[in-house]
């Protein structure tokens, strides 16, 4: 409770809701609307139709959705483990080494996705690591692109969890791993969920690197959507995007259930 009086609360909403609608409601709405459109040459579309959906369901878009979801979950999961691990391990460091290592873990997000794609393609098309043409390279690319997010979020969370709780846990006989599992990680959970959600969503939408390296048979939704929109089939692209959005939303909703249970208020 921050705004105590009803009129002010309503005033706040009166500003917030339109802001939200303009910035987020409109773009999402337009894409969803486009997915049902036959033509859109006026203010509003005409010839509302479901034909794009029936087309989408007939084609291999489900393989693409599956590829996207799997890539997202696996890459975000790996990034979560790696980022959390790194953030926790970095607690043992102080001052200069800490800053340097901190920077190292942020560097992956300092490289444009195009460069990441190129670099991976070059690096993993030559010995000793021959991974091009396999699903691995896509997973690696997504992992690299999102690893800094999990790391950053977990680090932010670690700065805020109370030391007391961890110390008391230790005094109760909790060894580091047990303490980590039962106290540190649960206290971090809101941040872990935030990190996973972000990186998952980011991975679901990744195109720049994926399009450069994806192997045959592992076409992610954005790659398909890109192919469609690049050739002007925007309504079909919007349809696929809606499917992508709904898929992501479902996963995020499940995650936020987890996070609600963890929220400490």
């Amino acid at each position, binding site marked *: 409770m921050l705004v105590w009086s009803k009129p002010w609360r309503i005033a706040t909403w009166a500003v917030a809701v339109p802001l939200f609608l303009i910035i987020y409601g409109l773009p999402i709405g337009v894409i969803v609307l486009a997915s049902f459109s036959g033509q859109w040459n006026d203010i509003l579309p005409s010839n509302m139709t479901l034909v794009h959906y029936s087309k989408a369901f007939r084609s291999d878009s489900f393989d693409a959705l599956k590829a996207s979801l799997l890539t997202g979950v696996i890459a975000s999961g790996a990034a979560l483990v790696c980022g959390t691990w790194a953030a926790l391990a970095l607690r043992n460091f102080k001052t200069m080494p800490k800053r340097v290592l901190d920077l190292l873990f942020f560097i992956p997000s300092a490289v444009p996705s195009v460069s990441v794609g190129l670099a991976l393609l070059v690096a993993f098309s030559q010995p000793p690591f021959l991974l091009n043409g396999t699903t691995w390279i896509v997973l690696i690319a997504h992992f690299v692109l999102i690893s800094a997010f999990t790391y950053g979020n977990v680090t932010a969370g670690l700065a805020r969890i109370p030391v007391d709780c961890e110390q008391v846990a230790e005094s109760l006989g909790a060894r580091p791993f047990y303490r980590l599992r039962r106290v540190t990680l649960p206290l971090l959970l809101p941040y872990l969920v935030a990190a996973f959600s972000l990186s998952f969503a980011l991975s679901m939408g990744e195109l720049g690197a994926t399009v*450069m390296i994806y192997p045959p048979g592992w076409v992610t939704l954005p790659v398909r959507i890109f192919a469609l929109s690049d050739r002007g089939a925007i309504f079909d692209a919007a349809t696929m995007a809606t499917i992508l959005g709904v898929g992501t939303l479902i996963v995020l909703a499940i995650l936020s259930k987890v996070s609600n249970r963890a929220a400490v208020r």
Partner: protein
Amino acid sequence: DEGVVTLYSADGLHDGDPSWYGDQFAAFTEKTGIKIQFVEAGSSGVVDRLAKEKSNTQADVLVTLPPFMQKAAADGLLAAYTPDGADKIDARDKDADGRYYAMVNNYPNFIYNTEVLKEAPATYEDLLDPKFKQKLQYSTPGQAGDGTAMMLQAFHAFGSKEKGLDFLKKLQANNLGPSASTGKLTALVNKGELYVANGDMQMNTAQSTDNPNIKIFFPAGPDGKKTAFALPYYIALVNGGPNTENGKKLVDFLLSADAQKDISSVAKGFPVRTDVKPDDDNFKNLNAMLEGVEIWSPDWAKVLDSLKDDVAAYNQAISGN
């Protein structure tokens, strides 16, 4: 991996439902039992990827547009191969060394919105009219294949690179902004967001069912002549691919008369085999559009050589405003 073949292809032929690729892949697998693995990207992207993967080549067959196919050939990414029926393809449609062959023919063009404009702009000069301010867009040379083609066309129509660049510089006043994609412009023209954009015949024709407000046109140069050049999808066998034998079968199949006869009706492009003469409406329609248009042939080797400088010169020219 006996029963597979990998194809890297520039986008365009897998569009629509049904699509020409879709049909042909199914037919090929049915005939040979070989499954096709397909990777689609921009016309330069596929070549770039092939180059980067050189030490662990994944592709068996490459399909892309000029000048990028020529680039692949020059970089030694392609293997010479004489497919069945190679003799039925015109000399100007194939590499002298037999490294690549045209598969689907196509021509760059312009489109306009028929709702807003009563008739197509007649000349390139007409495009400089202030009424097109912010209402005209073309895909950017150096970023999109069709954009590069449009630059080459301007060079040709105005007689020299200098004059062509001069025109593009003036055109920049009306240009909405750069675009990496040519295909998305069609939708914008259809919607009326743009009045004029560039494109190519195969793609625009394929798009016209979903975009009823667009129409193809060829503006005339200062000499009053309408000109265009062929921008075919080339097919080639990749050097050192994992399944070269299957690759050969696929090249043979896609250049076979059976496959070629569907090109105009399904892919909305022109077949390259001299012995294939389709009689569908679209083929007639395509030919009708080309009537009065003089077809010229760029020297792709030269184009390739100077491409980097030309793009730089173009960027220099348009940033002048």
